[in-house]
Structure formats: C-alpha cells, structure tokens
C-alpha cells in the first residue's frame, strides 16, 4: 500500500530531514511512526501526501509513484485516497459539524445524494450522530477530533495519516480517539500515525517505526515506544 524506497529529503535550507529511508507498509496495517521532534516524522507524512517531493528515492502510495503525479489531476486524485488528521483538528469554525464533513465531499464534486447519505452515516460511526448542527467551538477537544476523523474518512480513503492526533487531548480522551482509529483500521483502512505519546504506543501493541535524525533506528511489529 505504501512504499518508500531509499528516500532522502533535503530541504532548501540544507536541513536533511530523511536520509536513505525505506519503509514498506501493507494494506490494512496500523503503524506508529515515533521519534523526537525533528526526526523526520512529519516529513514522511508530507511525502506520502505529495506536499513535498523527495530529493532522491521513490515513494509509492496505492501502487502509484507519487513523484510522477501531475499537479493538475494526479495529486488531487492521490489525496482523495488519503485521509488526514492533525493535532489542531483544522476544522472550519464558521461551518457546522455536518458542513465541515460535507465540505470534503463537496469540493471534490460529489453529488448531493451521496453527501446526504454518507455524511450522517460517518458522523454516526464516529459517535457524533446527535451533534450534526453544532459548531466546532461548542464541542470538546475529543469531539472536534472525531469530526476531523469523520471528515478524513467520509470519502472512504485507502490510507489514513494521523499527525499527533492526540497531542491536544487528555489521556482518557486520547484512548477514545485511539479506539476510533483502531475501528477505522479494522474496516480495512491503512493507518499511519506519527506520535510522541508513549502510553498510547505501549498500550496498542502495533508496528512501531522509530526515526532519529532522519534515519530508521527501529522497525518492530507489536512494539512499544522505546
């Protein structure tokens, strides 16, 4: 599903974020990417989204070489197959829960009957079926993250990328969010999650890839944080 082959990424300011990194992730896997700040976690996710291009090496997502995709059609198409969840939720404050999720379908041109069918369905799935018409600032942090997960999943992506999704949440809420991500993974979505949260990584017992200064220092199935 995801394949990085000898990827090196050097930013224009000379910083090398990743150095000769190779990762293979199978369809339906749940993978933690851990490591200190600046170890290259975010760069890895940005390469998968094709927000950055590797300086050398190849990146494949869902069988496509993302380096070769065109900005006109290829990159948008890639991103329709990838859901994204962030630490700061990235919700639109002037839109309701329903509108935040439907926005993701609307801007890729899905017809109204698809939107009206899928949006309540996915919000029900993440446990927010009762809060369709609330605005983000009326929700708790955990609920806001559920909205953002709903938005990431509403188009039924093959891959879900999560960048510190529990970074702003208290431990109990974090556990709820992890249960939800696990649920999303169980229905076949490949999940890649970058995190600092030791407790969560230890509790989940999933594959762990540890990065340090742009290199893989550990790749362990059913691993713990360190």
């Amino acid at each position, binding site marked *: 599903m995801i394949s990085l082959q000898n990827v090196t990424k050097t930013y224009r300011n000379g910083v090398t974020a990743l150095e000769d990194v190779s990762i293979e992730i199978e369809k339906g896997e749940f993978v933690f990417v851990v490591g200190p700040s600046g170890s290259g976690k975010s760069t890895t996710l940005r390469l998968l*989204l*094709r927000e950055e291009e590797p300086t050398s090496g190849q990146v494949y997502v869902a069988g496509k070489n993302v380096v070769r995709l065109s*900005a*006109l*059609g290829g*990159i*948008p*198409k*890639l*991103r*329709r*197959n*990838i859901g*994204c969840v962030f630490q700061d939720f*990235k919700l*639109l404050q002037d839109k309701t829960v329903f509108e935040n999720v439907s*926005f*993701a379908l*609307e*801007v*890729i*041109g899905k*017809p*109204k009957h698809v939107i009206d069918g899928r949006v309540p369905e996915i919000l029900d799935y993440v446990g927010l079926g009762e809060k369709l018409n609330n605005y983000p600032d009326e929700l708790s942090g955990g609920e806001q993250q559920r909205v953002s997960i709903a*938005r990431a999943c509403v*188009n039924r992506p093959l891959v879900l990328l999560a960048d510190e999704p529990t970074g702003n949440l208290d431990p109990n809420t974090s556990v709820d969010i992890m249960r939800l991500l696990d649920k999303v993974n169980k229905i076949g979505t490949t999940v890649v999650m970058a995190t600092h949260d030791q407790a969560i990584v230890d509790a989940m017992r999933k594959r762990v890839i540890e990065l340090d200064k742009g290199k893989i220092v550990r790749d362990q199935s059913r691993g713990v944080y360190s």
Partner: protein
Amino acid sequence: MRRIEFYFRETAAGIRRNGIMAFAAISTAFIALFLFGLALLIAREINLVIEQVTGNVEVAVYLSDPVKPEIVADLQQRLQDLPAVATVTYEDKAAACARAHEIFKSNPAIVENVPCETYPASLRITLADTSQYQQIPAALSCQTDANGQATCNEPGVLKVLDYRDVLDRLSAITRVLRNGVLFIAVIMLVSATVLVANTLRMGMFARRKEIGIMRLVGATNWRIRVPFLIEGLVEALVGAGLAIVTLFLGKVFLVDQLRTQVLWIPLVRNSDVLGVAPLILIAACGVAVVAGTIGIRRFLDV
C-alpha cells in the same frame, strides 16, 4: 448544476467577507471603465461634428452659374477617373440650400436673408489618397495664388475648396481629447486590475485555512480557483454596469439638456452610448482575466 451552485455560493461568501476591498475594487473598475467609455463617446461626438460640417467630403469643387448638366456629367466623369479620388457626388443648388438651412437652423437671420440661388452647386469629393490631392486642381487647371485661393480656368468651375485643413485641425483636437481621456482611462484600468487582483489575493489569504483543507481532501486546482476568478469577474462587471448606467444618465441629464440650446452641433444619441457598452464590457472582462491571472498566481502550486 451542483458545481455551478457551489461556485456561486463560494463567490458570494467571498465578496461578503471581503466587503471593503470588494467595494474599492468595484469603484475603481467603475471609474476606469466610465472614463474609457467617455473617451470613446468623445471620439464619436467629434466624428459626428466632422460629418455634419463637411459631410465627410474632403474636397468641394464649386460650379459657376448657370450650371449646365452636360458640364457636370463631364467633370464628374473626369474627376472620378483620377486615381486620388474615391467618390464624386453632385449636390445641386436646392440640396446645398437645404444643407445650409440645416447648419444655420438656430440663426434665422441667415436662413431668411440669403436666397437659395446664392448657394452654389458643387461636386463633393472624397479622396482615396489624401496626399495626392494636387491631382484635382491640376486636372481643372487651377492656379493657387499667394493667399492660397485657387482660380480655375476650367469652364463651369468656380473654385476648388480644400477641406483637408479643417479636417486636419478637427481630427487633431479629437486626437488630443480622446488620447488624453484614454490615457487616464488606461491608468485607471491598470489600477483597477491591481485592486481586483489584490482583493482576490486577500480573499485567498482570508480563506487560506479552507483552501488548505480543499487541497488536503483532493480538490483540483480549478475547483479552488474558480470561485475567486468568478469573484474578480463579478467585481469588474458590476463596475462596468455602473459605468454604462452613469454614461446613460450623463447623456440624458447633460447632453440632452444641451440639445435644445445648441442646435447646430449634432450630439451623441442613445444608440452611440449603446454602441460603447459592449466595448466597456469587453474591457471589464480583460480587467478580470488579467487580475485573476496575477491574483491567484501565488496559489497555483498544489
């Protein structure tokens, strides 16, 4: 259908959110397009005056009394054969009299006291090539004296009158006036374009979070840009609409008031303003296209 609805909802939201900037862009576009239209109408007005004064004739050959039809026919044929001449038309005394009465409509003293026989018949010539004007006096064996007055030996010809001088002066005035207004209009059009572009850019900046999400979920570039392009087009077209309305109002309240007072000058009509309207709309579209290209360039990258 759904896509069009999406575009227009986004556009309307953008203009509302960006109110003051949109207002500035619309008013600049309005002033620029108004001046642009005004320049075109001034040019049209001066053309009308030229047409009236000269009947678009560049050279007139006045005929001496009594006018003999066979001489007229002969002269007409010979003039027509000159390479410099485009058209030759014969204006008899009655027609000359009618035209004079038209010109001096507001001056009854002239109309009443000058009898119709006084106006000479003439052959009115338009030139194919104005620089070869000399062919005409040469063909009629005229000599120009020190005062610039041409006396002709050709039987039946009274004198040859060259309107080119008048025409030159009139068109010089036209040029200065029209170019002056056009110059200001161009400057205004440029600033309108920059303002519209800036409005679009500020709109994109205000909505950078939305745009970021659109990119993440895989919206295409055009899906992201089109609402902004429509916004620019709407602003330019609203400005154009206001400019056209203002020109019409100016025509009704200023030009039409003059119509009863200065009778000898032909004034622009509604049809002239209507003729300028499409040009204003085209200029507005040009402003929108250029502004759109500049305004969204920074956000072209995926």
